[in-house]
């Protein structure tokens, strides 16, 4: 940001450019190289996820027994039929990667939605009710936060059993305390403001007060936390998959692919190198 504004002072002072809030945002965004790069990567992943059936050269679970553990196309023994090579039972790694984007995004969306909804409800109740309820919820969240993140996810999976849905629940539990804390703090700050007191004086009941008056003003910090959780969720899901506790083997999830390929590391480098690179 610093470097780009210095490099291009004319655009910054040009009166002809759009002045609407969105226009300003767009200008700042386009000038920020990091943001553009991030958008590009994200767009590619989303497109890959949506168009997986169209752009993937093979089905993710099609096994080409004749071509098992084939190296990538640019090496001596490779062929362009399998651009990034094949895994031990002859499945095309590129196709599995493209389809894996679906699962990673799905898990991330699921985790963010689940932890956001549960977190806002719990946090808002804590901040709104105060007193004993607040105390119990706050301490409970402290306990959850004291446990290292992956360990907490492992406990939840150990209880529920491995699987993709359970991994989503497990990771949501990991992110829950962060959301609850932010929601609780935001609600408490808003509750002390005069407009809330005014609404209360106007005769609003507690339900209306919380949902209609207070919560809309608490959304901003929660949205920021949600975006942070999104990338965190993808990594945690891959970690769980790698440990064999997330998505189960036939699913082309990136972490699971890595775990499958682990015993072939020294013989076939391509099976472990590519599944990790998107994350």
């Amino acid at each position, binding site marked *: 940001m610093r470097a780009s504004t210095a490099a291009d002072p004319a655009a910054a002072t040009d009166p002809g450019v759009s002045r609407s809030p969105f226009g300003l945002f767009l200008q700042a965004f386009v000038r920020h190289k990091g943001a553009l790069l991030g958008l590009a990567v994200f767009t590619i992943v989303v497109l890959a996820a949506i168009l997986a059936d169209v752009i993937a050269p093979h089905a993710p679970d099609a096994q080409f027994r004749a071509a098992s553990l084939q190296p990538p196309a640019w090496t001596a023994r490779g062929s362009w039929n399998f651009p990034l090579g094949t895994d031990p039972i002859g499945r095309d790694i590129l196709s599995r990667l493209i389809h894996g984007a679906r699962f990673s995004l799905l898990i991330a969306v699921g985790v963010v939605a689940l932890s956001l909804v549960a977190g806002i409800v719990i946090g808002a109740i804590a901040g709104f009710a105060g007193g004993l309820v607040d105390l119990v919820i706050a301490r409970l969240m402290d306990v959850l936060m004291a446990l290292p993140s992956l*360990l907490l996810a492992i406990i939840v999976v150990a209880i529920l059993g491995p699987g993709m849905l359970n991994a989503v629940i497990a990771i949501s539990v990991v992110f829950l305390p962060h959301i609850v804390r932010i929601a609780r703090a935001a609600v408490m700050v808003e509750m002390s403001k005069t407009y809330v007191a005014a609404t209360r004086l106007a005769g609003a009941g507690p339900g209306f007060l919380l949902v209609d008056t207070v919560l809309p003003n608490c959304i901003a910090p929660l949205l920021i936390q949600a975006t942070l959780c999104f990338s965190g969720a993808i990594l945690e899901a891959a970690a769980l998959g790698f440990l064999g506790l997330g998505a189960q083997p036939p699913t082309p999830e990136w972490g699971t692919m890595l775990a499958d390929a682990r015993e072939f590391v020294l013989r076939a480098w391509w099976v472990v190198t590519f599944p990790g690179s998107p994350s």
Partner: protein
Amino acid sequence: MLTEFLTLLPATLELGLTALLIALVVGLPAGSLAAVKRGSVVDHATITLALSGYSMPVFWWGLLLILLFSGTLGWTPVSGRLGVQYHFEPITGFMLIDSLLVDEPGAFASALRHLILPALVLTTYPLAVIARMTRSAMLEVLNDDYVRTARAKGLSSWRVVNVHALRNALIPVITVIGLQVSVLVTGAVMTETIFSWPGVGKWLLEGVYRRDYPVVQGGVLLLALLVVGVNLLVDLLYGVVNPRIRHAR
């Protein structure tokens, strides 16, 4: 359960402490250097490397390092804590210390070679965090008046940076180091799985596979206690570093 935990704990501690040590020994100077030479190539290199270390998934990074150092270069062993040709009863449980105590030639070197790669993998994230935190804390402190005074007194810039500035920059860094313990525990589970390191993390995970609930419950509880205990220690450490906190009421 407890005896099992205690026999395995030294292996994890050895790994975790080595990783933390590397993170401190590399991260603090790197962060300080980046802050002192702000905007230089060194600074940008540190930030970029730290950012990549930040977002690197442990399991993939570990496999890549195995590929490079064990596979292609053949410098380090792939898994375990000690070569098969050495065997002795554990004394302290810390392989580095034990191998020195039992007087078997080559055992220490073997233990060290086994330790280095897992420690490197485990240190990546804390190293990135510590380097970044040190840099930002140092940048703040270096602009303070007392640093200018120290320079005006004619002290060497080495002394100003390392004695006057670093000590005050250390408070936020210590907080972050305390938080890294929880990260290290998480990382240890992954790292021990990748490198077949016979520690608490791997044991815990096997407990999950076997549905061995006492192991999972007890192990997680003890690890959580460890994390909480270390964070308490860190809070007490503030007083050692900064006398003002010690006397504040």
